[in-house]
């Protein structure tokens, strides 16, 4: 009604009804978390790729496996990625090797199981937070839409009590309701993009890990 109605962003948010404000709050928190996870994921995935690269380089450089194992375990830090798979497999292999009465196939089976376990742990680490990003990507637009629908419902309900309906009476309500959808989309779009990108990165890493496991199994079999 009044020509001087404040349409600034903050007054829109402040003027929204409580459910809409709650929806906005949930979406903003969700968006903050999803972005936090995105950045964490970017860092961890990048590091895992770099580690795999480095480890493959050193592994295929043809050095002594015992030395490699020693250098890995001598680190204070627990080995990660491909190194942890190598560490688990080689430890198991060496342990079985000491018991001379064991069959070669049993030794290989044990080493393989150990590597499989390490691989699963690694995959679990790499997959962390991806379900959250997927949920944010698919659900937050709906949450935003809910807030918008609620806000527009309010705007039109208020309009019904007025005899002469003008756009200026509905516009602020719709504008503030649309802010909810905007925030929902802002949370969802990066989450979906990040999810797809991380899923493909993790897939590629898992393929690398598995192929390394097969190759390392072959090497151990030759050794024994």
């Amino acid at each position, binding site marked *: 009604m009044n020509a001087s109605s404040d349409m*600034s962003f903050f007054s829109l948010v402040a003027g929204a009804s409580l459910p809409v404000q709650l929806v906005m709050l949930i979406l903003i928190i969700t968006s903050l978390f999803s972005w936090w996870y995105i950045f*964490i994921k970017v860092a961890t995935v990048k590091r895992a790729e770099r580690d795999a690269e480095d480890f493959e380089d050193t592994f295929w450089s043809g050095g002594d496996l015992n030395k490699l194992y020693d250098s890995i375990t001598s680190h204070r830090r627990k080995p990660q990625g491909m190194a942890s798979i190598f560490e688990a497999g080689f430890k198991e292999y060496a342990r079985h090797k000491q018991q001379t009465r064991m069959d070669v196939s049993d030794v290989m089976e044990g080493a393989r199981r150990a590597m499989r376990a390490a691989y699963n742990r690694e995959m679990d680490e790499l997959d962390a937070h991806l379900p959250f990003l997927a949920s944010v990507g698919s659900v937050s637009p709906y949450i935003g839409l809910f807030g918008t629908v609620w806000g527009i419902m309010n705007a039109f309900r208020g309009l019904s009590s007025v005899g002469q309906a003008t756009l200026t009476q509905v516009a602020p309500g719709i504008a503030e309701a649309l802010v909810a959808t905007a925030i929902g989309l802002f949370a969802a779009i990066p989450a979906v993009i990040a999810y797809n990108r991380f899923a493909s990165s993790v897939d590629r890493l898992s393929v690398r890990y598995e192929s390394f496991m097969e190759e390392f199994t072959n090497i151990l079999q030759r050794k024994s």
Partner: protein
Amino acid sequence: MLRQRENPDSFKAGVLSITVHAILLGALLVSFNWKTTHPVSIAEVELWDSLPAVNVPKPEVTPPVPVVKEPPKPEAKLEPKPEPVVEPKLEPKPEPEIAIKHEAPKKPIKKEPIKEPPKEPVKPVKKTDQLAELQKQLLQEPVEKPKKPPVNDALKKLQQESLSDSGTSAEPKVSAAKAGVVDEFKAKIQTKIRNNVNKSLCGDGNPEVKFEIALLPTGELGAAPKLTKSSGIAGCDDAVERAIRASEPLPLPEDKTLFPQFRTLKLTFHPSKD
């Protein structure tokens, strides 16, 4: 919530996340024009005390004609008695004037009705003689006609009332002038409406339509025009009614005291005649 190996990155990621949101908020505030400089729709309204009558000056010019013509008669008879008027400058004036006008109006006005009616019928009879004279008289007629009723009223008043007040002497002049203005504006209203009538709807005959209209002081119609006499052609009646509505606001004299005479007007139209 966080894996152990993610801990070193968590703080950096948190800062980045907040940064991203701050950037988005900034972009939102900058890119959108949140300023609400509504183009305030100002409807400029000029307030008029009275109608913006374009023709107003004219009525003031024309009415003086009857006013001027009238006074001479009493004045002419005042002239023979200039002495009382000159000597007692202010106070005595009313008395002699009234006295004079008592005598004076009676004589001239009684003469007028007698003289004029004969003239009018007589001259049409003489038709053949002088067209010019006829025209002159016809031109004078509208001026003279309005005089009669107010003058007669004044006469009656003068006869009935006491002779003391000088104000009464002025009344006939004023009322006559007003009557001139009233007729002037009635004619203006009539012509304004007539100009808006779609004559083609009224056929070739000479239909007569009578309407009674109620006017507001602004010149607008107070109520729907009332058809008092139909022309027999519905389309013609409608055309005249539309013309009345289209003629709003109707011209009214500036003098608000005259308005009561315009409150209800009975207008007769001959749409095909013009």
